[in-house]
């Protein structure tokens, strides 16, 4: 392709001290004036690829050209050509929006007439003009990204490299970022946008789909999803337990993949397979199979060799949880203030035994604060958080024995081995002797950790880290599981496997409380509380929330549509 702006030819990158290449045999061509998505789970090599294009890294072998030049050797020439926004953009939180812009303008040597014009143009473009005097540290996640973008755009680059710009950005701001980028691309800017959100891939003109350091696909998203046409179906109006229905669906040989979507089950057939019979799925007399549009994720799953199946070995080993508390988790008028800022405002909810309850909301909305108060990590300013009838603040240890907790970021001991971590966490929950050994052996088998027992936990591949974290959280057979953004950044197959386990343990009577900003994960919940600006602005089953926002223009809104509508409705009724 002669018109390509960025070319990659068999690029390989191995970091010193690592035997596994971060990138292997990546060849691609990026065409100008469009948005190219670099899509893939965490650890796929997206950041490495972007940093190679930015000239911050040199490839171990293979060649890379930006506008026909070598980004490392001709770094001086390309400096003005490339705009780069790393994952955590170097904003100075104690400087105002304008001061940040001025600093970056100074760094780029932008002076005189042009400087003022650039400021006006970018502040207007990003909608930050009214906030020019505000400290960067006090901007929302979305506004911070816009400011970072403005700084990266200062030198009028022709190639803009964005490394996961939508992380920590609420769906509303995310849409704004996308439309801003679309506008810039239309004006001739070449944008590279890396993301682990597969739904974003569909908005790109072209994608590079990455997994485990390899390029799995490059081309337009439509080309990738085309083979999936007529293979994606939704099982609607089903009766009975939807988690059991999903398990039955996944047991069918003709089904490649399936997920829960509210009260429906979405399934993907294997190539050439016929639809399963409704009576075999035993989903009730009313059930029907409706064709739906294929998604990027379906194609990714197929490229990875299909979904993980529907059986949870973990759940099979678990003893059913019986308890007398119908309400397992309860928040009553829960409020948390940090100084003048109210992070959680009069939050009420109750979670019943055997239920998956989700707190859904953008970053910074207060869901983490609420979650931390519920598991006793944060003291509420007022109100009570009760777990199994006990206030965790006052009577901790006995109640905690029955909790399992999985943190958002990997928070096991990274330099201890897998076996040492298992031993430590089982010991911390009071397992000893034969019971400890059998629990450790079970977890090793269920999560297939055997080959990694002697590996440092921090060096595990992401999917296994996450399995280990779940293993450590459920080893002592808790009655209640707290999961904080459990599958953020993992590949879709691992995410399905994870939810298969969760569905399985819930079936045994375990209660699950989960926070998420993924619409996918929200669909698995029995009930969702939508958290926005510290308040619960809507609560109900995923389908109820969707129905609430159905309109003549959009009769069948997705979870994200529902989320956006509810947030905008709230924002217009209660301006900040």
């Amino acid at each position, binding site marked *: 392709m002669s018109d390509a702006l960025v070319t990659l030819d068999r690029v390989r990158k191995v970091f010193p001290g690592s035997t596994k290449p971060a990138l292997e045999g990546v060849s691609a061509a990026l065409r100008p004036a469009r948005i190219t998505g670099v899509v893939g789970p965490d650890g796929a090599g997206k950041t490495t690829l972007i940093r190679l294009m930015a000239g911050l890294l040199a490839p171990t072998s293979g060649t890379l050209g930006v506008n026909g030049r070598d980004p490392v050797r001709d770094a001086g020439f390309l400096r003005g050509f490339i705009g780069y926004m790393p994952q955590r953009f170097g904003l100075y939180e104690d400087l105002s929006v304008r001061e940040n812009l001025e600093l970056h303008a100074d760094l780029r040597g932008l002076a005189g007439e042009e400087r003022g014009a650039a400021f006006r143009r970018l502040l207007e473009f990003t909608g930050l003009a009214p906030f020019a005097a505000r400290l960067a540290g006090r901007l929302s996640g979305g506004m911070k990204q816009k400011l970072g973008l403005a700084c990266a755009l200062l030198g009028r680059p022709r190639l803009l490299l964005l490394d996961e710009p939508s992380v920590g950005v609420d769906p509303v701001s995310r849409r704004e970022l996308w439309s801003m980028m679309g506008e810039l691309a239309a004006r001739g800017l070449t944008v590279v946008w890396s993301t682990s959100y597969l739904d974003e891939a569909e908005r790109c003109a072209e994608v590079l789909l990455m997994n485990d350091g390899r390029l799995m696909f490059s081309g337009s998203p439509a080309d990738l999803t085309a083979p999936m046409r007529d293979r994606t179906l939704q099982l609607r109006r089903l009766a009975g337990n939807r988690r059991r229905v999903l398990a039955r669906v996944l047991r069918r040989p003709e089904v490649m993949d399936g997920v829960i979507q509210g009260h429906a089950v979405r399934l993907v057939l294997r190539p050439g397979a016929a639809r399963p019979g409704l009576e075999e799925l035993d989903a009730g007399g009313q059930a029907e199979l409706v064709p739906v549009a294929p998604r990027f994720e379906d194609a990714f799953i197929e490229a990875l060799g299909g979904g993980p199946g529907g059986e949870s070995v973990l759940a099979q080993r678990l003893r059913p949880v019986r308890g007398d508390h119908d309400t397992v988790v309860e928040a009553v008028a829960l409020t948390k203030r940090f100084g003048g800022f109210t992070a959680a405002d009069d939050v009420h909810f109750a979670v019943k035994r055997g239920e998956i309850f989700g707190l859904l909301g953008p970053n910074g909305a207060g869901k983490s604060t609420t979650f931390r108060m519920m598991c*006793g*990590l944060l003291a509420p300013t007022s109100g009570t958080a009760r777990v199994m009838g006990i206030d965790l603040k006052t009577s901790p*240890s*006995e109640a905690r024995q029955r909790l399992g*907790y999985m*943190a*958002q970021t990997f928070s096991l001991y990274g*330099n*201890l081995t897998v076996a040492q971590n298992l031993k*430590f966490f089982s010991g911390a929950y009071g397992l000893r002797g034969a019971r400890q050994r059998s629990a450790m052996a079970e977890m090793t088998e269920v999560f297939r950790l055997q080959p990694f027992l002697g590996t440092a936990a921090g060096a595990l591949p992401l999917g296994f880290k996450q399995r280990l974290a779940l293993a450590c959280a459920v080893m002592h057979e808790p009655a209640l599981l707290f999961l904080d953004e459990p599958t953020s950044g993992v590949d879709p197959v691992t995410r399905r496997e994870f939810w298969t386990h969760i569905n399985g343990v819930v079936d045994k009577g375990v209660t699950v409380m989960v926070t998420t900003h993924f619409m996918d994960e929200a669909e698995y919940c029995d009930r969702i509380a939508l958290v926005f600006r510290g308040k619960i602005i809507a609560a109900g089953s995923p389908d109820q929330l969707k129905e609430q926002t159905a309109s003549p223009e959009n009769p069948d809104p997705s979870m994200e549509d529902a989320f956006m509508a509810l947030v905008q409705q709230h924002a217009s009724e209660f301006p900040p």
Partner: protein
Amino acid sequence: MTMWPRILTLIVKELEMLLQDRQSRMILIVPVLLQLAVFPFAATLEVKNNTLAVYNEDFGRESAEVMQRFSRAQAFTRLLALHSEADVRRAIDRQEALIVLRFPPDFSRDVVAGRSPAIQAILDGRRSNSGQIALGYVQQILNAYTRERLPPPFPPAPSTLGVRHWFNPNLEYTWHILPCLIAIITSVNALIVTALSVAREREQGTLDQLLVSPLTPRMIMTGKIIPAVLVAVVQGTIILLGAVLAYRVPFEGSLPLLYGSMICYSLALAGVGLLIASVCATQQQAFLGVFSFLMPAILLSGYATPVDNMPVWLQSLDWANPMLHFIVIVKGVFLKNIGFAASLRNLVPLLIIAIATLGAADWLYRRRFAFRAP
């Protein structure tokens, strides 16, 4: 609930973390060995191998004789001859010499005539300490010379001073340094093991993982304190062995007393470390915290400068410095064989400090640690 198996689990985890990889094992051992090898030579107040400059305006036999004696002294391995006032200024300016001695033109004549001539000594005020010590040597040499040279109507001195240095008869600096090293090196690691590891757990989110488990803040604290004490005792033992075996510092006292006070001392430090960690969100802050405690603690410990020279208010403040007390005990046990009763004067404050810091940490951790903002 069974407490000790869980604490044991915590301790095992902590020690595994410390000993897991080569790198962290090295960090525990290598600095100790390195300091053991280097410190006793580097950190000495003895003045050796310095340069003495002489501006001799006298050309007689007597001044040559005095200079002969200087050149034999161990303190001055180099003698620099100067020839003008400007030379004198330059020698001090450029730190070419520690002391400049100036013999007046009629020095020899005066000595022969039985008068006592004056010699001028110019010292570098920037190196006042070593200058003073070197001047002492100069005076000793001059006194000896005067006694021999002055003609017999030399009045007998009314009394002579016989000096004996008890406990360290030859004033060996290693005898002073090595016991102090036990206190200094063990404190670095005891603080780091507590403060930094708590901060690291907070930074990496494992602290949350512990806090949602049935482990109580007190168990978590104990799980930090005991490994710190173990590390301190092992390192203390290495230095003790090095001092006795390699440097031949005599060990006069009781081992149980030494180890008892070492444990008290490391408990006090663990308390300080936990207090530092309770106000730090990151390892970096904890590191700064450790150093802002350690520097004044060492400077005010009596290791480098005598505590008695400090103003009274500072001395009373210094009572709270655990290192001060521990150094007194270590040196006492090492060189003087002080008994248990005599050590109480410092052991009791050490215990009080340990109880106070651990108590404060316990109070803080039970109240705030468990419910800390993210």
